[in-house]
C-alpha cells in the first residue's frame, strides 16, 4: 500500500528514533511513542517537513486509567499525515508541551485540552480557560463526568414545579 515517500519516512523513523509505524492507508502513518521522548520526536518531525500541526486529540481511556494524546502532523512537502500517539497517567495528567516546536498553533490546541481534560502541559505559558466561563466543575470532557447529573444539580430546582420533570 505504502508509496515511496511513506516508506522512506517509515525507514527514517526506524533508523533515527527506533520507532515502528504503521501505514493504515496511503498518506496515513500512525506511530506509538513514549511520552518522555515525545518532544524530541516532534522536533525531529518538524525538521523533516511536518510543518503543520493539524490537531491534538485526547482520548480518556477510563478503564485503563490513562489518557491518550494524539498529535496529527501534516507535511506540506511529502503530503503525508503522521499521527503520533502517546499515553499519560490519568490521575495526574501532565506532559511536556510541544509549543516550542509548533509555537502558537500547538499552544492553542494544548490550551483547549487543558480546559476540557485537565491536562497540564509543562512549558506552555498560556493555559488560560478558553471556552467555559466561570467554570467550577471538573474537566467536562472526562468520561466519568456525568453532564446530565451536573446540570440537574447545578441548574435545576426539584422544588420548582416546571423543573421537577428533569429529576424523574
Amino acid at each position, binding site marked *: 500500500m505504502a508509496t515511496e515517500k511513506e516508506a522512506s519516512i517509515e525507514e527514517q523513523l526506524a533508523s533515527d528514533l527506533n520507532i515502528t509505524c504503521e501505514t*493504515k492507508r496511503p*498518506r*496515513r502513518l500512525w506511530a506509538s511513542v513514549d511520552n518522555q521522548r515525545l518532544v524530541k520526536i516532534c522536533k525531529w518531525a518538524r525538521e523533516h517537513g511536518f*510543518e*503543520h*500541526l*493539524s*490537531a491534538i*486529540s*485526547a*482520548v*480518556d481511556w477510563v478503564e485503563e486509567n490513562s489518557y491518550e494524546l*494524539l498529535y*496529527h502532523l*501534516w507535511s*506540506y512537502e511529502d*503530503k503525508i*499525515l503522521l*499521527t503520533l500517539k502517546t499515553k499519560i497517567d490519568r490521575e495526574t495528567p501532565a506532559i511536556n508541551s510541544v509549543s516550542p516546536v*509548533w*509555537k*502558537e*498553533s500547538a*499552544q*492553542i490546541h494544548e490550551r*483547549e485540552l487543558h480546559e476540557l481534560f485537565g491536562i497540564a502541559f509543562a512549558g506552555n505559558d*498560556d493555559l*488560560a*480557560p*478558553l*471556552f*467555559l*466561563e*466561570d*467554570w467550577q466543575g471538573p474537566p*467536562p*470532557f472526562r468520561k466519568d463526568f456525568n*453532564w446530565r447529573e451536573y446540570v440537574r444539580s447545578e441548574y435545576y430546582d426539584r422544588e420548582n414545579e416546571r423543573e421537577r420533570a428533569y429529576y424523574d
Partner: protein
Amino acid sequence: MTERTSASVPITTDEANLSEGSAYDFYFGPAHPGSGNFGVKLKIEGETVVSARADPGYLHRGFEKLMEYRTPLQNAVLSDRICVLEALNWNLIHAEAVEELMGIEPPERAKYIRVIMAELSRIQSHIIWYGAFCIGIGFDTGFKLAFGYRDYILDIFEAVTGGRVYPAGYICPGGVRRDFPPGLVKRITEVLDKVEKMVAVEALENPLLSARAKDIGILKLEDAIRLGATGPVLRASGMKADVRKDDSYEVYDRFDFDVPVRDEGDAYSRYVIGMEEIRQSARIVKQALEGLPEGEIIAPSLKKPKLTTKIPVGEVYVRNEVARGEAGMYMCSDGSGRPYRVKIRGPSFLHMIPVLEHLLIGAQIADVPAIYWSLNVCPADLDR
C-alpha cells in the same frame, strides 16, 4: 458586573487607563452585528490596536461530547450544526470518518452527488464571505446582494435535501439520503451562470473593496505556517496547499481545477482567493454534473439504517477542505454503536485565535472588521 474569572485580560482596567492616558479597552463582539457570536478584547491607543485577546465560548455547545452519547445516524444530523454556513461539508466529513471505520465504500453516484453538494456549499459559503466582508467595510449593498444570490443556491439545497440551511444529515454514512429530483441539473447550471456573473462584476470589479482592503492585515508565509493557518488564508500568503489536491478524498482527483494562490497576504488578496475559488468550484460542479454516473446512492448495508449498527474498533483521522480551510475529524470507536471519542478540528479555531490576534496588533481600529472578515471566519466551527 460579576468578575470574569475566565478572562485573563480584565475588561476594565481603570488604573491602566489612567496611567497610559489615551489607551482604552474595547470589546469587539460577541453580539456585535459585525462579529458573529465571538468577541475580541482590544486595547486601543489613539486609533491603533496595541493588544488583542480572543474570547471564544459564546457558542460552545460541546459537540465532541454530545457525539459520544449518540449513534452515527443521530450524529449525521448533529454534524450539520458544526458550521452553520457550510453544513453539507461537515456532513461529509462525519460520513467519511464513519465509513472509514466501518470499511464501507459509498457507490459512485453518491460520491459524485457529494462532490456537487459540497462544492455548491462552498460557493454559497464564499458568497457569504463576500457579503460579510462588505459589511465589515461598511458597504451594505454588497451584503444584501450576497444574501440574495446565496438564496438561489439554497433553493437547490431545498429541492435536494429538504432543508435550506441545514440538510439534516443529507450526506450520511454510506452515501446520500435522496437522489436528485428531475430537472435539477439544468437548474444548477442556470444558478451557477448567475453566480459567476455576479462574482465577476460585483465582487471582483468593485474598486471600493480593493481601495479599502489592500495592504491591511498582512500575513507573511512563515507566520501563517507558525500560526496554523490553512485554506484560503494560507494560499493568500503564497503557499499552494489544498486538501482536495494534496490529500484527495471522494472523487476530487478526477476533476480539473486550479488552486488560486497569491503572494501579498493582505486582506484583499485573501478575499480575492475566495472569489476565485467560486469559479473553480463552479468548474468542478459542471464537470461532476457531466460525468454523473447512474446507480445506487447508498451502500447496500446501510440502506436501511438500524439503531443496532455497530462501529468496529478502530480510530481514524479524516481531513477535508471546507470553505474556510482544513477541517479534520478524529473518531475512535471501542466497538459499540456510539463513537468513543470524536475530535473536531475546525479551521476557524486557528484563524480566529492565533491568526486574528497576530493580525490585529498594530491595525487601525477602523480596519478591525475588515481584517476579521477577510479571514472568512465562522465562530460555530471554532466553538463547536
